[in-house]
């Protein structure tokens, strides 16, 4: 058990060094000729108007919201699925109730237009 996580940790470190090595190599190999126009914000040649860090529509938040709650649902689904064969049939109905209650939420979001792309 411990060795598996040790391996994951070491793989993480190696996975981090690869892009860093790439960038370091490019620092040595690539030319550096900065210019004000070249380093300006890229907008197909147009002048940039206003700041990029603007306010976005609330619709994005609604996606994230529905996503978070369904993600939490999967956390309960996985142990249930793994343990399913050792559980009585009742467990299926317990999970169906759980899913139905969350399904009401999905239907509500659907009806309220929270699932429409802007």
């Amino acid at each position: 058990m411990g060795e598996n996580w040790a391996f994951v940790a070491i793989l993480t470190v190696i996975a981090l060094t690869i892009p860093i090595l790439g960038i370091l190599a490019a620092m040595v190999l690539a030319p550096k000729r900065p210019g004000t126009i070249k380093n300006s914000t890229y907008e197909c040649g147009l002048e940039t108007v206003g700041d990029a860090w603007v306010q976005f529509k609330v619709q994005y938040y609604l996606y994230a919201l529905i996503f978070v709650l369904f993600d939490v649902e999967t956390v309960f689904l996985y142990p249930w699925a793994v343990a399913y064969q050792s559980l009585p049939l009742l467990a299926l109905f317990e999970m169906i109730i759980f899913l139905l209650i969350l399904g009401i939420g999905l239907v509500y979001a659907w009806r309220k237009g929270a699932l429409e792309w802007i």
Partner: protein
Amino acid sequence: MMEMLAFGLVAGVAVGGAIGVVAARNVFVSALWLVLSFIGVAGIYAILGADFLAATQVLIYVGAISVLILFAVMLTHHVMGDERSNNRQAFLAFIVSSSVVAALGVLAYRTDWPIRPADAGGSVVTAMRGDLAGSSAASTAAQTGASTALTSTVDLALNQDSNVVRLGQALMTEHLLSFEIISLVLLVALIGAIVIARD
């Protein structure tokens, strides 16, 4: 030794990330530090032997709640620039919170915790997978395994595969009520948040 090193690393990531959260002046950067702290906490769970919880921590906190927080930051754009981030109570808050940490630390150190003896007994719960070919023998074996897990003396030998199974069993038996209520809480949160955010 190696375990202590690993613990020091992940604890450093968790606490360092937390300090970054309160020290960063920009809210977006603060949220990125928060993600780092969450990853450190996932590492602590992994060291504690709670594999499923470590993955859950990454899936929910890093993959979902952080996204929610970042979207909220994007939606409230006044705060994107650097700013004076702390209010006038900051000094008082520092005193209060550091005394809380000191008190909790001293308590944790001085209390004589009833630590269970290290890894008593072997693993009671054998691997409970029955494949699909799963003749009745496999499924009955799984069921007897389940009953031993439920009734025998509690044995925390870290048989990981059975840990997830036992988690599922616990959710479906002892903790069934809280499991069903969580779905209601999530439903109410979803509806409430949609109503509030859209208004």
